[in-house]
């Protein structure tokens, strides 16, 4: 997956001209966006719990060094292994090593965005290991050879007819487009994979430092299968996904499920605290926890953006974002999409590279209101734009959009010099008569302003300015 301004524009155009996609995202947002807001209202502590949770997340982030040390100690005490991975390559290599040591030929995966971030699947495949996504939506997009387009509803862009055809082609079953039938087909196909897999790989929604558990939620049960049946389980977590203790876990889990799917709780919540113990019949013989940095310490070191590490990747912000609603997930061209992606992707892959992402959002604030931990995404979007406007050494940002900056300079000079301002506008009011009009609107502006009028008309300047009217009524 690559992201750049051109792909972004093309992806957006493609999504906007696809009526089925538009309808399914709208439908998803109508259900989940509204449902989530109601679900916060129904919290027994009231919606203010989000603010408490924000404080809790930030306190965990501020104590990350201690909490990570405590977590690692606990996991080892419980018989698991912990590996701290500096970057994507280190995490991928560790997984490959574990796979090789255990003679792994088939891997089943629980849905996880972090494995998309480090691009794990292609590495496993090229090491000759069959890698099967087991979340139904992920399974579908993997079969179709596409990236997921939503963090919790990866196949939101597919309609049942596509899926029916896909199954006929790839699994050789009789065509059906009935969702129950299709689910049953996938259930059977994946059941064999689960039972014969040697290794399970999952993400980690949250880790509890006090007890040393990786906590994972799912509705389908694929996470339970992945963490129970294979001989080896590897869980990969972003280093920030940690809570101090069981009490914080209670609040975070409840908020996560509300933010993600407007549910009070997802069907399954698994607390994984190490490998099978003697005398137990199931569970993996080995449990590995991989803690990933991959650019996160850099974010941690900048208090402007540290807040984004509080994100628990619930995808709640996608379900209300007017930009995501129109352009869908693929346009973002990265593992993390929507408002959270517009902040995280530039920070992880370079602000200049991701400039279109933070500029594409509208700053409407819907994401902040929908966020279970009340992250101020709009503030961080603006901060990113500021870095782009002025450049930044810490982030190695080259100033971008000099023309805009020059224009703003002229503007600020004008508005602080009223006589000049007045003269300039009176001149413009005269010149504008030369422009093509339709009704009482300007149809086209001359370059470089013509991009503005490419898709809209513009209101002409009034003959007598507001200031003059006030002064000489």
């Amino acid at each position: 997956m690559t992201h750049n301004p051109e792909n972004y524009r093309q992806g957006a155009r493609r999504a906007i001209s696809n009526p089925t996609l538009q309808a399914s995202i709208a439908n998803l947002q109508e259900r989940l966006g509204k449902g989530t807001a109601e679900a916060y209202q129904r919290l027994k502590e009231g919606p203010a719990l989000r603010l408490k949770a924000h404080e809790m997340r930030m306190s965990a982030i501020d104590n990350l060094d201690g909490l990570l040390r405590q977590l690692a100690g606990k996991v080892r005490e419980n018989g698991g292994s912990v590996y701290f991975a500096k970057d994507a390559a280190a995490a991928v290599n560790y997984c490959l090593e574990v796979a090789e040591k255990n003679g792994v030929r088939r891997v089943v995966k629980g849905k996880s965005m972090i494995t998309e971030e480090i691009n794990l699947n292609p590495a496993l495949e090229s090491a000759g290991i069959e890698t099967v996504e087991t979340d139904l939506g992920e399974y579908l997009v993997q079969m179709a050879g596409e990236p997921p387009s939503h963090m919790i509803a990866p196949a939101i862009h597919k309609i049942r007819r596509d899926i029916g055809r896909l199954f006929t082609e790839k699994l050789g079953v009789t065509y059906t487009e009935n969702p129950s039938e299709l689910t049953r087909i996938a259930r059977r196909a994946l059941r064999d994979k689960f039972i014969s897999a040697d290794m399970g790989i999952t993400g980690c929604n949250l880790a509890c430092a006090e007890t040393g558990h990786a906590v994972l939620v799912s509705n389908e049960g694929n996470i339970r299968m992945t963490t129970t049946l294979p001989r080896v389980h590897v869980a990969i977590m972003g280093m920030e996904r940690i809570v101090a203790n069981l009490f914080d876990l209670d609040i975070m889990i409840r908020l996560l499920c509300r933010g993600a799917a407007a549910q009070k709780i997802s069907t399954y919540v698994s607390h994984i605290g190490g490998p099978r113990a003697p005398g137990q019949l199931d569970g993996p013989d080995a449990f590995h926890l991989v803690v990933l940095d991959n650019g996160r310490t850099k974010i941690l070191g900048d208090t402007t953006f540290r807040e984004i590490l509080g994100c628990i990747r619930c995808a709640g912000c996608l379900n209300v974002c007017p930009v995501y609603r129109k352009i869908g997930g693929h346009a973002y061209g990265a593992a993390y999409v929507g408002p959270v992606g517009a902040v995280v992707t530039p920070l992880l892959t370079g602000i200049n590279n991701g400039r279109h992402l933070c500029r594409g959002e509208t700053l409407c604030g819907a994401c902040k209101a929908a966020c279970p931990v009340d992250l101020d995404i709009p503030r961080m979007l603006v901060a990113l734009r500021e870095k782009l406007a002025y450049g930044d050494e810490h982030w190695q940002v080259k100033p971008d959009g000099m023309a805009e900056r020059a224009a703003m300079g002229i503007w600020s000079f004008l508005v602080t010099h009223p006589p000049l301002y007045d003269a300039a506008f009176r001149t413009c009011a005269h010149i504008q008569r030369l422009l093509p009009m339709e009704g009482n609107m300007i149809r086209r502006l001359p370059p470089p302003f013509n991009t503005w009028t490419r898709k809209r008309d513009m209101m002409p300047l009034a003959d007598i300015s507001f200031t003059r009217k006030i002064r000489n009524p």
Partner: protein
Amino acid sequence: MAEHNEQQFLSRVRRALGRSNRSGKPLTTPDLGFTDQIRSAIKRTRNRQDADFSALADILKTAAPEINLGVEFTDTADRMRSAMMARIEQADPEWGDKKTVTAWRHPLLERLELDAALSRLNVPLYYPPVAVSAADDFSNAECDEFKTRAAKATVGITAADFCLADTGTLVLRNRPDHPRIVSLLPSIHMAAMTMNQLLLDFTELYAILSDEFRQGMDTVTNAMTFVSGPSKTADIEATLVHGAHGPRQVCLFILRGE
């Protein structure tokens, strides 16, 4: 190697947080003043009377249908067994031609005398094998054999540690004799428990777990699972379908008056 990695990793984190590298400060787990809440939640759960449990049962009765969880209250072990048998009789085998049942070894389930009842229905019942001694571990073959049985079973019967009335959540902890696949692989999951195992919500549960954990008990175990209703998916055009990977039906049987 791993050691070194970890130290470097953590010192990078410390630097980013603006702390000195050799900060000898002992770790303080941030506690945002919840200790009192834990205490009061625990007190509440300890002082519950019959009437309180009935009130919880009423809450559960409203929550259960929302997540498609079946709940049956019975007054005696005999009644509970009949209720279970009625459902087992109706069940259709999904993963084999023959209807089979697998169950935990658990005192409450023993009281139900499932063996005799199931043999009358001509349905085989498989329990997990017993480890010869506490230190004795199972061989791979033994584990695999039980896995195969559970994967073919129509019904899996467990005994929940707790049920949270507010969400209809069953809490199942991993212990010897209580394999977690029994609640996962069979097509139908049945769980038994007594009234006094009802709790109100997650806050009460985590408070109890916290408290026990801090007393040094292995309370969360190496795999604790919350189950709230049957497995489900909405990945195809947002249509809700039950039985994605886990059981397509879950039913809870609660014994009253104990």
